[in-house]
């Protein structure tokens, strides 16, 4: 490894150490050219150093100033010329557009077409809305009819239910006949643990002789 390369490596290592010390938030992979932070102040060896003013000969200074003034003047004139040119061009194009195409006439034509379209669409809409209204009235009427039908059906069902219960009410067990019902129940045991065959006969327990009642 050459001496120069060695020096470079040492410089990088030192720089890395300083980075860690003074700029811990910096991304670790980012290589930044090392600079002393301003907070360290001027080095003691450079504390009283006075930088030398540049020494320019008088005729050279004159020449530099002349060139500088020339440049400024020329740039100013070019800028002014461009600005004027732009203004002139804009005026010309605006006038040309307004005169040649006849914007007003075009607008009137468009307005007329638009009005025609509007009239046509309005007529179509009126027809459509009328049809829709007729359809809706039809639907409402049929719905009402259906509703009436449903109601009458339901009422018939309820009526049937009431009739059935009226018939059954003679078999209800109430306070008057509960003693009798209990006596009957205790007298006769019901057994739902049976098998049936295809003729509808009942078989209880292990017996193979069919019975016609299930209890």
């Amino acid at each position, binding site marked *: 490894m050459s001496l120069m390369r060695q020096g470079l490596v040492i410089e990088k290592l030192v720089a890395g150490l300083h980075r860690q010390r003074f700029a811990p938030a910096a991304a670790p992979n980012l290589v930044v050219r090392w600079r002393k932070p301003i907070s360290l102040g001027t080095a003691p060896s450079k504390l009283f150093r006075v930088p030398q003013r540049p020494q320019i000969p008088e005729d050279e200074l004159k020449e530099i100033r002349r060139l500088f003034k020339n440049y400024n003047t020329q740039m100013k004139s070019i800028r002014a010329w461009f600005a004027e040119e732009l203004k002139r061009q804009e005026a010309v194009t605006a006038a040309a557009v307004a005169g040649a195409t006849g914007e007003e006439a075009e607008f009137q034509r468009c307005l007329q077409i638009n009005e025609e379209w509007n009239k046509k669409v309005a007529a179509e809409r009126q027809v459509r809305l009328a049809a829709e209204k007729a359809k809706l009235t039809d639907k409402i009427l049929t719905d009402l009819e259906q509703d009436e039908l449903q109601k009458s059906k339901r009422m018939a069902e309820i009526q049937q239910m009431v009739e059935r219960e009226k018939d059954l009410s003679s078999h209800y*067990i*109430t*306070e008057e006949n509960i003693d009798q019902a209990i006596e009957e*129940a205790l007298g006769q*045991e*019901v057994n*739902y643990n049976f098998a049936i065959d295809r003729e509808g006969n009942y078989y209880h327990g292990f017996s193979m002789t069919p019975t016609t009642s299930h209890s």
Partner: protein
Amino acid sequence: MPTYELAFLLKNMSKPDIAVSLKRAGQEIFLRGGFIRKLENLGVSKDTPYKISSHGQVHRTASYFALQFDAPPTTIDDLRDVYKRDVDIVRYKIFKVQEPEKAECTLHEEILPPAYRKDVQELLAESEKKKPKQWDAKTGLDYYPFQR
């Protein structure tokens, strides 16, 4: 008023005592504006499937009853409370009686031989659809004549 069914077990007692208990259970329903449709005795002094503890006693036999009644739905919780506290009732449960589903008898179809059953025929048609296409032998050859 909807119809409910009360299925309950009474502890092992003499028949007159059972009658008294049954009447008490019925009276609770009448008290709340209900009526009984049916009272069924499913067996007196029968063995329980397992030993049951209730009201501080152990029961191995009980009398089984089913009681169909109509009562306002708001009173059912009341009835449950009353029957829970009745010392003669070992176990009870109140069900809502559902109308049985109407089903048509299809036994005559089900006992046909499989090939004649409609559902089997449908399954066969479905499997026929899924079969991969086979070489059509209208060429008279029993193999595919061209190089694959």
